[in-house]
């Protein structure tokens, strides 16, 4: 009895016609879901009451009484009643680009754009035609370009610096050591490189862990258990301070490379476990069918098992990717100032703006949110695409 009008309402929602109007069925179904039962009605009322308390004060703090000008005096006066968005105007360049030398910041900005374009292109190509060799070449090419752009190291082309590049730019093109890289480009670069490196390692770990060969099985299991038993922060700490002690003296890779290595090896263990779960959902009969048509071990895994396994665990893998993106904020521990780190840097460096940390955090929160939300939508899109196939 109850169902008939409901179906009608939802049909009208999906396919509103002029006769039904758009809002009438919408309102009807809203009322039904919000006040359908006494319990729902009470929940709705309580929720509305909380909202009426929160929204006005949020609006008055965040908008009505807020200070939008980069004016510390005005912010001081509005303290406690209004937000100080002027902070962002005053400090955005340190927050977004970290300790990168101010007059060279266009290089960090260009890097960010290059990375975003590369990631966007890869995501679309990866989802439509699959990851091909040409894409891998593009990655290597763009990453080398980014390295040159960010570091300013020209290697064998050093002679071009003063004769061609600087005159062309109309300003000096200086060398910027990696420990001065920071802010948003560092966050994106680290996440991208670590994700791209960790995924294949994770696939091998997962294959080893599900393999029937005891040696690989035990090695992979041990690795995964050890890494999962250690917090990322200590991995980073060790990568940064202990690793150089183990290497022959005088040879110590750049701190950025050590950090990339640390995050990659850490993330690989987690992704491996997710992939293993996926591999276990692929029935043994699929492997039997694959080997019965003459496919060897690697072809069987690559062509038959992994595509089916990964399809199942895409949400889990994307979860890990999002985690990696946010976990890059931990590299402050080894004095690299990515987005979160450079916010702290920007705040602590200037006593005038120190009281408005909250506004700064809200700002980078929104930056993180944009990226994480995009990643999560991308994952849903891929899932949807695969379901249709």
């Amino acid at each position, binding site marked *: 009895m109850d169902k008939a009008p409901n179906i009608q309402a939802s049909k009208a929602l999906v396919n509103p016609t002029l006769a039904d109007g758009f809002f009438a069925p919408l309102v009807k179904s809203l009322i039904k879901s919000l006040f359908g039962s006494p319990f729902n009605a009470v929940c709705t009322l309580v929720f509305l009451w909380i909202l009426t308390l929160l929204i006005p004060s949020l609006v008055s703090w965040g908008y009505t009484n807020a200070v939008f000008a980069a004016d510390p005096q005005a912010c001081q006066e509005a303290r406690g009643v209004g937000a100080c968005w002027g902070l962002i105007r005053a400090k955005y360049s340190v927050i977004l680009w970290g300790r990168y030398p101010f007059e060279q910041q266009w290089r960090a900005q260009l890097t960010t754009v290059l990375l975003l374009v590369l990631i966007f292109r890869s995501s679309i190509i990866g989802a439509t035609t699959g990851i091909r060799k040409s894409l891998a070449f593009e990655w290597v090419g763009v990453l080398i370009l980014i390295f040159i752009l960010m570091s300013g190291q020209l290697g064998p082309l050093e002679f071009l610096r003063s004769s061609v590049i600087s005159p062309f730019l109309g300003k000096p093109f200086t060398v910027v050591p990696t420990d001065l890289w920071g802010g948003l480009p560092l966050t994106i670069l680290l996440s991208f490189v670590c994700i791209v490196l960790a995924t294949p390692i994770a696939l091998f770990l997962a294959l080893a862990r599900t393999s029937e060969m005891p040696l690989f099985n035990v090695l992979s299991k041990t690795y995964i258990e050890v890494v999962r038993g250690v917090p990322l922060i200590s991995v980073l700490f060790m990568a940064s301070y202990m690793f150089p002690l183990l290497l022959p003296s005088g040879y110590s890779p750049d701190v950025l490379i050590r950090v990339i290595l640390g995050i990659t090896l850490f993330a690989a263990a987690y992704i491996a476990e997710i992939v293993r779960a996926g591999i276990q959902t692929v029935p043994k009969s699929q492997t039997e069918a*694959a*080997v019965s*048509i003459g496919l060897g071990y690697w072809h069987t895994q690559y062509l038959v098992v992994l595509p089916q396994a990964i399809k199942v665990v895409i949400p889990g893998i994307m979860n890990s990717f999002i985690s990696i993106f946010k976990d890059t904020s931990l590299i402050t521990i080894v004095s690299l100032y990515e987005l979160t780190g450079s916010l702290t840097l920007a705040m602590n460096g200037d006593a005038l703006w120190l009281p408005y940390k909250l506004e700064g955090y809200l700002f980078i929160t929104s930056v993180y949110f944009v990226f994480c939300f995009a990643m999560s939508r991308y994952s849903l899109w891929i899932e949807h695409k695969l379901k249709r196939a």
Partner: protein
Amino acid sequence: MNTQAPVIEFELVNKWYKNYHVLRDVNLNVQKGERIVICGPSGSGKSSLIRCVNGLEPYQGGHLRVLGRELTDDARTVQAIRHSVGMVFQQFNLFPHLSVLENLTLAPIWVEKVSPEVARERAMTQLERVRIAEQANKYPQQLSGGQQQRVAIARALCLKPQIMLFDEPTSALDPEMVGEVLRVMTELAKEGMTMLCVTHEMGFAQSVADRVIFMDKGEIIEQNTPKEFFTSPQMQRTQEFLKQVL
């Protein structure tokens, strides 16, 4: 009498699953072009027997030679034998993430390294042979059981095998689809394919097989031409089994 060396030779083959003795002293020679139907109650070891032929199951005692090669643990030998031995499973085991055509071209492209065009042509020929060419771009889940099994047969045939193994190919099918699969198998038999077929389809055995083998508790109890086998079975266990299935 065929004087050629047999294409499959079981010599006192024994197999255990832990303490369970699955195959007991199996001796069996299969000549080129011979069509053999293996029947018996469930758990009699008939599936294990044919799964040994392409190395899906290891055996622990005796010797097994396929196409003149001793089947060992060596991955290359096993892979080479699998390449010449096609197999059709009870549950079809098509690859759900690939289209029908991709299911068929996978091994030619990746194992034989033929060009995609050649593989495609070969696949279409096989699909026409099993009368399903119009479904080439569909995915396995979009096909009926009978159609899926015919695709599975075509997939095995794409590698131009010398021997075909069928492991209860019609047991998972709705009754009205059994006929279309048996028809394809009968045509294959008439073309001279060497076939080892585990099945309960006694009509197929009577009309197609050169030899029917009855297994029970891991042993080959009786083997004979279909005519003799069905009209005058020698052993009591065979008689009891036939009473149940006929």
